[in-house]
């Protein structure tokens, strides 16, 4: 190297230190942490560093087609769009250090739809479009990121969750598999007049457990399975009688586009082992429990059946471990939090029913029909592994004396059931919201009076009560009384604007833990120092908000996401908002379940408290964004009820 070159080199190295400093900063964030050094250096060398004072507009729709790509180096940027319900604007998202904008507009070669403002003094790296285009061409990592934007961030979170759960597993299956792909072979079918002997021969030849009876247009009329054959033989059935006399009529069916998850749920709910696949009215396949089993190591349908046939409460308690395993596997294979809570609820329902049946066998039938009710998260079908008992009993009675007498007979049973459930891992409710409590073992008329009282007198206890009891559902026994109660509540709330307003106030009590200046608001002291509560602060705002709006608009659904969907369908909330709330709710719930699984593995007690610093950067960002959606839902309630 000549002396002059050496000088030039020394100078160049020194200049590069600033570039390197900026690169080091960027390498803390995706996608820059995955980009090749040369590509990153090219990007930084072509950047300008720009300052925006608090409140300055960075880009806005009126600026026309976007000409720059921005990365926040320091500070915060808010996206503001015109408010959907009132004049002025609302903050729809927040971008902080290491994050970029406006990808969609840049890729789409259009103006941004959202004004980007500096929420505080902010420095942004700004890359001109020609350099952006060049980078897009050379770096596949950058291209992938730019094309998929924030949704690729969500994918990454999901990938990470799957990866983490997969560390303890390794199996390959997916409940998202389309049923059409599962049933590869032609379905075995026959005409209605086929003799039983002939139908069984067909089943044996093809070694299948079921045959579908179809009309000439291939429309399924009924199904006949080996289980039905057992019944027919035991009943001394004639082997020459036509199959349509023995078949189960109108078999349950799904379309080939439905998922393995749908089939597993149907089998678990309906106690069936075969699901017909029907496309355009014609039979196209059959999926059996065995087909699903090949997808799962812990078989959901089998597990549900084992629960329903457990001979002792101790057996049920031991099956809880299998439920944990199942949830582990489902997380590992990318099941959504809704799928998981749905399955947990389903298995819990089976457990509850089985406990009730076992207690009835043990103590004898009380001789009065009753309905087992559940409230709260169980009522909303949103249970996680961390489950409290919230239950009650509903029965019919002539008058109050009759009610008292029936109560006397049911209470000892209810107490036994509560104890049995506690053995199965359903923690006894600290607030004594349990059927064994005389105040929760009531006749139709008594429940009616009690609920009407909640609505008439909006005391703090009554409001709290309504937030638990109005998410009611019948788990065991005749459901009609429960349905009537629910409709009654809806009618009363519809008339009572004051009660709605009090409920709205109540729904604003739990503020999502995001602050204006720091990303999370955490407890300052005590054992909970530095943590936030995923359930109370994160999920409750959505649950309370959806309940209030559903009850106020006569929507019977109890599940939070179902409520949101119906509210969107009825134009009570904006479709985009509804989608954003749903996604945010999913994310918080998923992070919570992940934490529970981890606690279970480490033999720690379940806790909903999370130290956000233990999350990686991506999870933190997405969690914060999700909490911000909760804030938006709350501010829309405040506006609607003028609070």
């Amino acid at each position, binding site marked *: 190297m000549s002396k002059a070159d050496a000088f030039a080199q020394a100078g160049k190295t*020194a*200049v590069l230190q*600033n570039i390197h400093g900026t690169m080091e900063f960027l390498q803390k964030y995706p996608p820059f942490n995955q980009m090749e050094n040369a590509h990153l250096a090219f990007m930084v060398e072509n950047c*300008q560093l*720009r300052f925006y004072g608090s409140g300055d507009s960075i880009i806005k729709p009126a600026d026309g087609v976007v000409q720059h790509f921005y990365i926040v180096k320091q500070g915060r940027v808010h996206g503001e769009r015109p408010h959907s319900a009132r004049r002025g604007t609302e903050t729809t998202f927040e971008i902080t250090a290491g994050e970029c904008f406006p990808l969609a507009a840049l890729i789409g070669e259009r103006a941004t739809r959202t004004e980007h403002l500096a929420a505080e003094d902010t420095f942004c790296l700004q890359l001109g479009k020609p350099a952006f285009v060049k980078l897009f061409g050379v770096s596949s990592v950058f291209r992938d990121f730019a094309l998929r934007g924030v949704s690729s961030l969500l994918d990454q979170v999901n990938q990470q969750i799957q990866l983490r759960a997969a560390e303890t597993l390794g199996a390959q299956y997916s409940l998202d598999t389309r049923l059409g792909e599962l049933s590869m072979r032609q379905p075995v079918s026959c005409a209605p007049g086929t003799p039983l002997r002939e139908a069984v021969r067909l089943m044996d030849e093809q070694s299948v457990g079921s045959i579908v009876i179809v009309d000439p247009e291939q429309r399924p009329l009924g199904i006949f399975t080996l289980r039905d054959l057992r019944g027919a033989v035991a009943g001394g059935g004639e082997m020459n009688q036509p199959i349509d006399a023995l078949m189960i009529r109108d078999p349950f069916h799904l379309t080939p586009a439905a998922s393995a998850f749908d089939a597993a749920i149907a089998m678990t709910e309906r106690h069936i082992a075969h699901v017909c696949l029907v496309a355009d009215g014609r039979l196209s396949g059959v999926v059996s429990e065995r087909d699903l089993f090949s997808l799962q190591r812990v078989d959901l349908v089998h597990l549900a059946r084992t629960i329903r046939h457990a001979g002792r409460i101790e057996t049920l308690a031991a099956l809880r471990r299998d439920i944990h395993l199942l949830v582990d596997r489902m997380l590992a294979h990318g099941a959504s939090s809704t799928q998981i809570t749905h399955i947990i609820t389903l298995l819990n329902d089976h457990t509850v029913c089985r406990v009730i049946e076992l207690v009835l066998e043990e103590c004898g039938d009380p001789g009065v029909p009753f309905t087992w009710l559940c409230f709260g998260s169980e009522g909303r079908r949103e249970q996680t592994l961390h489950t409290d008992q919230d239950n009650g009993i509903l029965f019919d009675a002539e008058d109050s004396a009759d009610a008292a007498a029936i109560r006397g007979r049911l209470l000892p049973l209810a107490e036994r059931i509560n104890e049995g459930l506690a053995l199965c891992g359903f923690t006894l409710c600290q607030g004594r919201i349990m059927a064994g409590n005389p105040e929760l073992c009531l006749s139709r008329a008594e429940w009616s009076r009690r609920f009407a009282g909640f609505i008439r007198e909006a005391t703090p206890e009554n409001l709290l009560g309504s937030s638990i009891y109005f998410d009611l559902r019948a788990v065991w026994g005749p459901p009609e009384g429960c349905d009537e109660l629910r409709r009654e509540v809806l009618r009363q709330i519809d008339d009572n604007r004051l009660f709605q307003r009090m409920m709205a106030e109540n729904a604003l009590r739990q503020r999502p833990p995001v602050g204006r200046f720091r990303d999370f608001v955490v407890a300052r002291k005590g054992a909970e120092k530095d943590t936030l509560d995923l359930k109370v602060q994160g999920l409750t705002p959505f649950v309370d908000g959806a309940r209030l709006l559903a009850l106020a608009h006569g929507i019977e659904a109890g599940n939070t996401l179902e409520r949101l969907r119906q509210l969107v369908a009825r134009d009570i909330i904006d479709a985009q908002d509804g989608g954003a709330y749903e996604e945010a709710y999913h994310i918080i719930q998923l992070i919570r379940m992940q934490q529970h699984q981890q606690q279970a593995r480490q033999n720690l007690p379940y806790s909903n408290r999370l130290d956000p610093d233990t999350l990686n950067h991506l999870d933190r960002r997405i969690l914060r964004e999700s909490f911000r959606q909760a804030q938006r839902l709350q501010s829309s309630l405040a506006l609607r009820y003028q609070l």
Partner: protein
Amino acid sequence: MRFSWLNGRAPSLDDRQRQRLEALPGVASGALPLRDQRFVVLDLETTGLNTSRDLVLAIGAVVIDDGAIQLGQQFERTLQRDNHQVSESVLIHGIGPDAVAAGSDPAGALLDFLEFLGDSPLLAFHAPFDQRMLARALKHSLGHRLLHPFIDLAELAPLLFPQANIRQGGLDDWIAYFGLQVQQRHNASADALATAELALILFSHARRQGMDSFAALEERLAGWRRRQRAQSL
């Protein structure tokens, strides 16, 4: 004109260097809006703090143009100095004797800098120090007189942010006040970058207070200096 004041003490420059010196532009008027004016933010590393005895060891400069720091246009040269003694300042700037011995010939490096500077006004933190050191180096190595105006950010910052209550603060105080994230301090160009970030913040606030040109800033600073003197009398 430039040569009129050069007398017998002119350093020995070769023809190419003389041509380069002659080709340098003048100095901008300072009337342009801040956003349209190109600025050069300067940070010098020196052998010590004595402006009449110590030498410039390194020049770091960052450009503010179109209202933004241009990361692709940075300048840094380490100057070659014979018999450079290690002093305590090496602990600050980290330029050891090896780097200094391997540095550029001072006349060439300073010419490079002047060409990089063009007609732009200069910004620095504690500018009078940098101004004096640079002027002496230019005179000594090139026989060139520094005419470019400087704005001292150490003076501008408390004028625009009296609420910060930082009177005689250093760059570190202002970096802390604005929460600036600085990667590697005490390297001439990293310091220049931190100074440039400070300048962007100050310009943004100056514009909000109706000062939107180099000249306007100078004027306000002169008034401020008079008031400060009056108060101290």
